[in-house]
């Protein structure tokens, strides 16, 4: 009897020792992983720190070696020089193009997503597959033919040339369809029995229910539109039609532009997106996750 207890005790003690060893190994690994994580995070933040501090440095400080890690005598001159360019116009263009794309995509995609998810009609499956398979299409590959087409329309260097092509991109339809599937069919039936017209039903009942997905899609589209450098590069010609990133790229191309001015421009071109992302991170994250879930 006592021998038995002994053995059992020993076994247990051994088990605890193994457990402890494992926990120690685990925590060493964990600490290493966390250190690596923090170092990578610092490396990711550093370029932004360099942009923001660089924007306030005069040229000879910006190129000083060893570098001045923090601007000791900050200056606003860079912004003054930067605003000798039509920066307000560029900013307006960026906002106008991104906002229009956002509204267009949200409207068109929610209408299509709703019927693809909730209605029965011939060709439904085919149309959905058409949209989904186009999502895997390499987007930039069609830019050359798209450009020649816009040139035929006379749309080069116009707002419609910058805005309308992006509304055709099918990601929004897919996202909205995924989300609209979760709307209970009884709700729609009940509204119809009450004599609700289709347009009213969509506007009064479907749209509010789609709100979370619409929010995510809106932010997603806005940021993508703002950052769609390649399209903006080939569709824009004149200085006054340039977007903020494109104007900055032009300044970068003129090799005489001082660093500080470029950094000030870089801050202006990116800070709005970073702010939007930080403010709406939750909706944005949800949108990305939803878009990736298979239907």
């Amino acid at each position: 009897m006592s021998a038995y207890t002994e053995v059992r005790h020993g076994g247990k003690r051994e088990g605890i020792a193994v457990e402890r060893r494992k926990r120690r190994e685990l925590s060493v690994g964990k600490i290493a992983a966390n250190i690596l994580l923090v170092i990578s995070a610092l490396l990711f933040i550093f370029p932004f720190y360099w942009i923001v501090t660089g924007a306030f440095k005069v040229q000879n400080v910006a190129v000083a070696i060893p570098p001045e890690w923090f601007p000791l005598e900050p200056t606003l001159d860079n912004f003054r020089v930067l605003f000798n360019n039509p920066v307000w116009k560029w900013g307006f263009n960026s906002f106008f193009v991104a906002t229009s794309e956002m509204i267009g995509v949200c409207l068109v995609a929610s209408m299509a997503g709703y019927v693809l998810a909730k209605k029965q009609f011939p060709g439904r499956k085919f149309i959905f597959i058409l949209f989904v398979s186009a999502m895997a299409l390499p987007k930039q590959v069609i830019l050359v033919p798209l450009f020649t087409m816009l040139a035929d329309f006379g749309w080069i260097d116009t707002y419609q040339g910058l805005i309308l092509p992006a509304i055709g991109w099918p990601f929004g339809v897919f996202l909205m369809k995924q989300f609209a599937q979760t709307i209970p069919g009884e709700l729609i039936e009940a509204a119809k029995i009450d004599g609700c017209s289709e347009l009213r039903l969509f506007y009064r009942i479907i749209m509010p229910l789609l709100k979370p997905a619409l929010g995510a899609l809106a932010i997603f589209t806005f940021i993508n539109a703002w950052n769609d450098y390649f399209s903006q590069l080939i569709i824009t010609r004149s200085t006054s039609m340039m977007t903020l990133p494109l104007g900055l790229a032009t300044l970068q191309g003129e090799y005489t532009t001082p660093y500080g001015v470029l950094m000030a421009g870089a801050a202006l071109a990116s800070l709005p997106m970073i702010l939007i992302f930080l403010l709406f991170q939750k909706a944005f994250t949800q949108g990305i996750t939803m878009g990736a879930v298979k239907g």
Partner: protein
Amino acid sequence: MAGAVLRRKRYIWREWLTSYLFLLPALAFFLLFVAFPMLKGIYISFFDYTLRDFDFVGLDNFNVLLHDDVFAKSMWNTMLIVLVAVPAVVLFSIFAAMTIYKKSEMQRSFFRGVFYLPAVSSVVSITVVWASIYHPNYGILNYITSLFGAEPIGWLGDTRTALLAIILVLITTSVGQPIILYVASLGNIPTSYIEAAQIDRASAGQIFRKIIWPMLMPTNLYIIVITTINTFQVFAIIQLLTSGGPMYATSTVMYGVYEQAFMLGSFGLASAMGVVLAVVIGIISVIQFKYLGSDVEY
């Protein structure tokens, strides 16, 4: 009775009609600005299409590409970028996600946000700051390596380092979305699975291989396919940092398309390059689906 059937029929008709009307805007935009340009791209790849000419030349454009050293170099560079960047993005994203997914909500969104910063920022801003970091004389990178006694390097101007320097920037702009997705799917793994394995004294490595990795497979597939498609089309970073140089060391197919079409005005040849790139991307996506998709359980 007949009236009911008629009403029913009319109801179905109206359902169809409203469905098509609701679909019309999305479909119109899609056909006009996505489907049609795609077909047109294939069509004009058989033409000598410049500002002056529009002549049918059959497969000549593809023949030219077959014997073009610059195109071969660009294709090679593109493949190299994909082969290095895609695994790096996937591995780093899994590492980051594994390390942060159990943290508090606040820390999690902090790290997710930090790694997403380069992806939401304008690529022009990113290249502005990296051009300064990489600068041979004033760059902070050479300053740091000089502290360890290294000679200064023209990171973007040297054929040996330029492509690597580009890939590094590309990786930082590509991990944001994968990390968000991995954190989400790690959070979806039932903790009871992992706890049960821990009770059975499974090691951390075993838990990762036997439980976490298989549960991540659908996410892996999605991320690998999407990252590959995007990496094949890398353009802005290259155009803004090196313009494909030095000596075509960083030229990619997408940069070649841009150069042919918008600097040399030869839309036919550019479209042919685009078609070749699309076919290559298509083949590789299918292979990835076949190879990785077989492990996926939905």
